[in-house]
């Protein structure tokens, strides 16, 4: 039997001008979370438990766009969503529209384990959270100053044509080869990068699991649901693999990206890396996204078609890598 493997991500689509300190902060968080997962795997904790505990850590840290530190809705509030899937048996749980639950991924897990359903949202989900006695806080717990600033910029960007922060000097002497500012989800990447978080794991029993969590799109309309809580789009785990996606939510949904990796392995017989490469290349059309994946034979892989993805991966035989760029 092959050994365990784990991957984490903090979002695909990164500002190429991201200040070095932010890059370092991100890599440290990814490393810390990876190590948390590795310790758990070494203690024979099951894949489904590992993905939950790693994503809880990512939610609790304010750095990426999940739990505390979530991107803000158009009203300046936080509305979170998450999903989790256990590859053995393919049970799943998902939540959307959470405003007080400290760790959305854990509520998603409870939906899977303790309710007759797979997906609960908005006030129904909050009510379930109360019944389950999970930790809840005021909505402003999740709001960080960084994100308040970002919302302001996003609202301004909606009404200006270009990103005024890009230096004008040099534009006159450049030819037509100058690229316009990178946009994702309709916003300049300097203002909003998806930074959804996720974790995929295969444990030493060969069981795969996946978990994804997010605050969603910056400046989103209230009630907008993205790919993260949708099984088959943002999250999927089956016999053969566990997958978590991030990027332009609508493109991921349309491409049923997470399920696609599994489908291509199952129906085309591709190995994990080939499946990941195929899906990123062929299933995104002009959408920008990335994903992390593990296979039941202990492999780990990732792919993205945008500039950068915050990620980390490790396998039992000692391989470990944390990165942002290609």
């Amino acid at each position, binding site marked *: 039997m092959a050994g365990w493997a784990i991957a984490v991500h903090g979002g695909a689509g990164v500002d190429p001008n991201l200040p070095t300190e932010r890059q370092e902060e991100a890599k440290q968080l990814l490393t810390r979370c990876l190590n948390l997962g590795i310790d758990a795997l070494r203690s024979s904790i099951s894949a489904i438990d590992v993905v939950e505990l790693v994503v809880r850590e990512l939610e609790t840290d304010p750095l990426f766009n999940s739990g505390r530190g979530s991107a803000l809705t158009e009203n300046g509030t936080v509305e979170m969503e998450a999903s989790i899937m256990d590859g053995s*048996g*393919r*049970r*799943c749980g*998902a939540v*959307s*529209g959470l405003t007080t639950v400290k760790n959305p991924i854990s509520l998603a897990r409870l939906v899977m*384990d*303790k*309710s*007759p*359903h*797979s*997906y*609960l*949202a*908005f*006030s*129904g*989900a909050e*009510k*379930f959270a109360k019944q389950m006695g999970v930790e809840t806080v005021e909505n402003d717990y999740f709001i960080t100053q960084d994100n308040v600033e970002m919302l302001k910029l996003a609202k301004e960007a909606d009404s200006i044509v270009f990103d005024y922060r890009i230096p004008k000097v040099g534009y006159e002497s450049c030819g037509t080869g100058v690229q316009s500012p990178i946009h994702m*989800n*309709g916003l300049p990447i300097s203002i909003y990068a998806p930074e959804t978080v996720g974790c995929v794991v295969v444990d030493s029993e060969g069981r795969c699991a996946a978990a994804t969590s997010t605050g969603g799109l910056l400046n*989103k*309309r*209230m*009630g*907008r*649901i*993205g790919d993260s809580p*949708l*099984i*088959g*789009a943002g999250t*999927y785990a089956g016999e053969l693999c566990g997958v978590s996606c991030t990027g332009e*939510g*609508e493109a991921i*949904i*349309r*491409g*049923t990206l997470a*399920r*696609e990796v599994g*489908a*291509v392995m199952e*129906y*085309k017989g591709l190995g994990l890396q080939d499946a990941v490469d195929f899906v990123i290349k062929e299933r995104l*059309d002009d959408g920008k996204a990335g994903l992390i994946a593990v296979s039941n034979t202990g492999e780990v892989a990732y792919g993205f078609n945008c500039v950068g993805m915050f990620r980390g991966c490790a396998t039992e035989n000692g391989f470990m890598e944390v990165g942002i760029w290609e």
Partner: protein
Amino acid sequence: MGWAIALHGGAGDIPADLPPERRQPREAALHRILQIGVSALNAKSSPLDVVELVVRELENCPHFNAGKGSVLTSNGTVEMEACIMDGNSKRCGAVSGVSTVVNPISLARQVMEKTPHIYLAFDGAEAFAREQGLETIDKSYFITTENIERLKQAKEANRVQQDYTQPIKPKDEKETPVPDGDSKLGTVGCVAVDSLGNLAAATSTGGLVNKMAGRIGDTPIIGAGTYANKFCAISATGRGEAIIRETVARDVAAVMEYKGLGLKEAADYIVHQVSPKGTTGLVAVSSKGEVAMPFNTTGMFRASATEDGFMEIAIWPSET
């Protein structure tokens, strides 16, 4: 090749002794609504327009679990969801938690066409409906006495299942039989293809009887209850939790694309070999004008027609 259309009014444990007063209105509705779809296709309406039109009719009909006639949540309220997808562009729209919009499928279409998003839910979806000027109505409009009765029976029979401390394993999901055998009906849907091979799918539902408020099923989840690409269009019905897990709609298309199976083979494979028995039914059409309507439940209210004159309206498995 000519056009093809298939529609359903829900798969479930439809008892063979369904009384005539429950059976005939539904059969008549399937017949009438199929004709509406057929006329639209003959008039060269696009498949996207046709599936929306047909599902609106199914929503307006109180005998099916969508729009008026939706089943009730455990609070006795109606929470509707719907989804529409265009095969060529793979553009899609979905809504959940809708309680005052007369035609949720049309709201889903507006999400697809008037926002950069795919999925809006609950208060956000209701607010968007008002912005778009869609027809809204008092919540009581959707509630029928049949469904009040169903909820009552479900609460009485399922008292045991309200105990959530036991983890729910897949094999436990087969519900205990309820006196009113058709209380497990879910969902309406329509798929269509025109003579050029353009495909579209649409699904709409009130969800599960006695569902927890806020519960979302397979219908609005692209790839689970609804899917269309350039190979085929699918609308599924049955036990939402199972359809989500099996990514039913996407898998039918994936098996066609990756294993080169024809529509009927692919649909049969997913419904009969992969999905747990008693959970799933679907209607499907392919870019080649084929139609498939497999189900692994006792029955599925369904109807289909092709341009060359073939027509079928049925509830239980047809004798072949």
